[in-house]
């Protein structure tokens, strides 16, 4: 059997429409849940009202590497997909070539900052890996 008859005979229209509907519903629901997730986390993180003890504020000194891109987290986000394309232990030159290929801004500086910030771990012999 061929053509529309074959589709109808195998209940194809119903399976396709229902299947597509379920996928959209499922991923739509997941999308909604994760869009609210940060609110739930914020609720869970809210400090308890009962605790009123005053704790002296600790001065946190944040070391910022000189000349680095302003946001190291953003740099990691930009470079992580590139690093995932490479073997787990890679040469910096390979990362540099990929960064150039994707036209990421100031790759030399960014890679140096990743090393300074301790996110690229040297394994010796010129090999590095991402410190997760």
């Amino acid at each position, binding site marked *: 059997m061929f053509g529309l008859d074959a589709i109808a005979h195998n209940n194809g229209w119903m399976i396709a429409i229902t299947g597509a509907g379920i996928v959209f519903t*499922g991923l739509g629901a997941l999308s909604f849940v*994760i869009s609210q997730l940060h609110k739930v986390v914020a609720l869970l993180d809210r400090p308890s009202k009962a605790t009123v003890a005053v704790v002296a504020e600790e001065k946190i000194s944040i070391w910022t590497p000189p000349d680095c891109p302003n946001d190291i987290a953003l740099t990691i986000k930009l470079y992580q997909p590139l690093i995932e394309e490479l073997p787990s232990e890679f040469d910096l030159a390979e990362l540099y070539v990929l960064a150039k290929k994707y036209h990421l801004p100031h790759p030399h500086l960014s890679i140096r900052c990743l090393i300074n910030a301790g996110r690229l771990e040297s394994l010796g012999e010129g090999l590095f890996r991402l410190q997760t």
Partner: protein
Amino acid sequence: MDLVLQFLHNTGFYLADYRNLIMIVVGSFFVWLAISKNYEPLLLLPIGFGVILGNVPFFKGFGIGIYEANSVLHYLYFGVTSGVYPSIIFLGLGAMTDFSFLLANPKLMLLGAAAQMGIFFTYLCALALGFTAPEASSIGIIGGADGPTSIFLTAKLAPHLIGPIAIAAYSYMALIPIIQPPIMLLLTSREERLIRMPEMREVSRKEIIIFPVVGLLLCTFLAPASIPLLGPFFFGNILKESGVVDRLANTARNAIIDTATILVGLTVGASTQGDVFLNAKSVGIFALGAVAFSIATASGILFGKFMNLFLKEKINPLLGAAGVSAVPGSAREVHMMGQKEDRTNFLLMHAVACNSSGVIGSAVCAGILWSFLIG
């Protein structure tokens, strides 16, 4: 003299069939593509070599070939036919995937859902061409652009088609740089390709850790048949994100997935014995695979444009093309296409978000089709 003649009759030179020779040429072509052109070498090299290996002519009945009980290749192939290797590969994939991009912009998940429409469209096309419903489902899933998912569903529904479907799925994944860009150009205007995506918000560690649990529960409650794929996938992800079992996460994303990839590639390649593989059905599967991939890409892009009708902050519709789950090939293509129009437009992270959603979407689709057809 008789002994020599008997030996000669058992050699590959005597037993060679023109179909074996054709497949050896195809396998050699894959090996060439992998090594010389660097086209998805992780997939094409094991598959290509497997094709060559599986088509060496041999005397049947000695327990040598992949389809002969008790042969070594048959035992290795068990991981494919039982759906074990795809589950293991999903474990490694989960341990490699960073969901923070998706968590930062959850609406991109809908593009991953839209790109799965290629699966259902191709399912209908395959039915219309005379394939049975289980065969049509297995062919349709090629549109998910996910090799392990294709192998898993085919192993469950139409195991006799594993060879051509796996080869088609992986070949089209390797051909993403050729298939997707023309469709992207055709369906989007320059203005649309120039749309910049907003800065992503910071995602907390707690969100990243909670997501695999929420994702697993929601998806598998909806489509329990996707447990063999999504279970290991989200487990691998929580290994990675928990930060307390780095050794396990590293093993999952390196040694385990590499081992499974080698075995799946080699045995799927070896399963393409000329006498089994070269027939009209395989040609039909390859043609439908191209349709599946193209429709999947197009439906993702068109849904992105549709979403823009309602969104205040427009999204770049190119991202829809990354809704297929070919990680990271399709995300890379989207990024490159965006950069062709504007070198300062970085779409990579957003495209990776769509890719992650596509992996979940195609596994859910496989679960849905499986549950429909075993019922």
